[in-house]
């Protein structure tokens, strides 16, 4: 029998993949989710591997590519789908959209559209935990593109000086929209090298190997929780779809078909399944049954979301200053 924690990781990846694929189809076919949406299809191992190492009291932030970390952290699926449809029952009451999701109960602390913002915010949250003497860790997902931003360095530096319990999770998928890393970072350098230079412990891990990611994340979270300081994980991965929206960008000319194919072959779900096939020969059947289960789950969530009401425009200003009643 497969180690139950391994099964859980694969199942979680399959759930995210299935949810995103179905949502992408609806997005494309209906044009009813009116919010720019950045799918993580192909990058599920970073979401699942890292979040599996957290407790619900740990907080996870992300950038624009938010659904996978949100779901991996246990964020409510129905509230996410309702948010994408702009409904009052959405996780951000239809105010935030795909790029601004939050599920406080699950410990998904927020996502943001502007690169780098949630890197600093997570350091602040980690600082708050430490100040309050709580054994909690803040984590923050961001792409290697956000690692171009000055605030990334400022945040690393502060976290190192104050030994903040924060884990920086860099999903290095090699591109910032269509800019390859090579036009943005000099040869011979790395994101983790930047962390080290600021005094932040770091680890580079194969981001499509969910088990390796989980192990590295456990170490990192423990390190941070124990007051031994911040850690950066640089996770090599790849996005399959276009930067934004449900489509592909294979014809945009900035990445080769060979590159895409090699990374599709390195699918994190396939690789995890391969890894457990020895102990669990029935893994493929399992995956298929999970797929079916989650397809149903997300279809049900979509049906429900569509039937839900939009926010009342009388409440347009509510929550701008004082708390909004729900």
């Amino acid at each position, binding site marked *: 029998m497969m180690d139950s924690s391994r099964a859980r990781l694969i199942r979680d990846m399959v759930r995210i993949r299935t949810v995103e694929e179905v949502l992408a189809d609806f997005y494309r076919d209906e044009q009813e989710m*009116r*919010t720019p949406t950045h799918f993580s299809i192909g990058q599920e191992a970073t979401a699942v591997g890292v979040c599996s190492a957290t407790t619900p009291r740990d907080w996870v932030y992300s950038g624009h590519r938010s659904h996978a970390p949100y779901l991996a952290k246990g964020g409510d699926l129905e509230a996410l789908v309702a948010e994408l449809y702009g409904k009052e029952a959405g996780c951000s009451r*239809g105010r935030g959209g*795909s*790029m601004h999701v939050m599920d406080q109960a699950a410990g998904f602390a927020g996502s943001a559209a502007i690169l780098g913002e949630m890197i600093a915010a997570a350091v602040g949250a980690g600082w708050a935990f430490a100040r309050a003497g709580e054994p909690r860790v803040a984590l923050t997902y961001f792409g290697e593109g*956000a690692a171009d931003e000055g605030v990334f360095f400022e945040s690393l530096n502060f976290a190192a000086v104050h030994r903040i319990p924060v884990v920086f999770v860099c999903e290095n998928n090699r591109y910032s929209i*269509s800019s390859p890393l090579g036009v943005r970072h000099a040869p011979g350098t790395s994101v983790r090298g930047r962390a080290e230079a600021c005094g932040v412990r770091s680890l580079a891990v194969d981001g499509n190997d969910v088990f390796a990611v989980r192990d590295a994340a456990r170490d990192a979270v423990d390190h941070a929780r124990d007051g031994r300081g911040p850690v950066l994980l640089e996770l090599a991965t790849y996005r399959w779809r276009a930067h934004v929206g449900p489509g592909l960008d294979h014809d945009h000319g900035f990445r080769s078909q060979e590159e895409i194919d090699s990374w599709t072959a390195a699918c994190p779900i396939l690789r995890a399944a391969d890894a457990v096939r020895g102990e669990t020969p029935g893994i493929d059947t399992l995956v298929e049954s999970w797929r079916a289960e989650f397809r149903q789950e997300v279809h049900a969530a979509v049906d429900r979301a569509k039937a839900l009401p939009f926010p009342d425009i009388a409440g347009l200003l509510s929550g701008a200053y004082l708390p909004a009643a729900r």
Partner: protein
Amino acid sequence: MRTLTYWQAISEATVQCMERDERIFVAGEGVDDVAGAFGTTKEAFRRFGPRRVVDMPNAENATAGIAVGAAAAGQRPLVVHVRADFMFLAMDALVNMAAKWRYTYGGDKGGVPVVTRGVVGRGWGQGSTHSQSPHATFAHYAGLHVATPATPADAKGMLVQALTGDTPVVLIENRNLYPLVGEVPEEPLPVPFGVGRIARAGTDVTVVAASLMVHEAERAAEQLAERGISVEVVDVRSLRPLDEGIICESVAKTGRLVVADTSWARYGFTAEVAAVVAEHVPHALRAPVRRVSLPDSPAPVSHPLEEAFHPNASSIVSACLDVCGEAGAVLPRLASVSAGFQGPF
């Protein structure tokens, strides 16, 4: 005259200026990609390649400071932000370096004529941080020029002015204008800053607007004309310098003022225009000034909220009816310029 879309006009200005002045280069995140900043940098990249159309790291503060330094050393950078919101990260470099450079070193040692294009405007549920228009923020600071072209001809002419002038310029472009078609001169003729334009002549109400809101005002004017209300639409074209004369003359004639903007009222464009009138021709006002602007909240995403949030032709109609003493009247709702937009962003 031959016609171009607004984005083509920008592209043409860029290419023509780059042909004539090899010190000009384009810098911005993704300016070399397939989207080419809404098409505006594609032709320049095709012609001049990556040396002169430079994909930049996501480092808006340094990019702006580097542009200032390059300009100080004789180059002419044109920095492009596909969303003007990123310019908050470049605020220090624009407001403290670019705006003040010439004066601070005595005024006689050259300036740093960096040109920064920032794209604003509603897309498709982009949310609170991608739905802003910071024109008034930049226009508050002496040393900059800030322009908001509303037509393809102005989009071309003002970019030419910026790329051939002496002053650091911020150009704010509303993305909903890109598909708009209009007559555009073939030659790269500069359109000077500080000279407004009567977009539509009228006698009963003046609507002062900039950028996208000029078109919303024109739609409003058409509807109101059917009702017998004659609206004059003033397109200020640039916020700094601001053509006070054209505003005051129009209000002196009509006696009524509506100011329309895509940003918040407080300390914004609508405030300044109303202030200019209060300073120069207050006694011409036959009715209180009305401001059409964003409600006092961040931008929401959900479609019905977004529709309610963004001012448009119908909001201008209501304000005009109001200043004409017909506050009760309800006219059929007008589609806004951005209506029919499809995603994904």
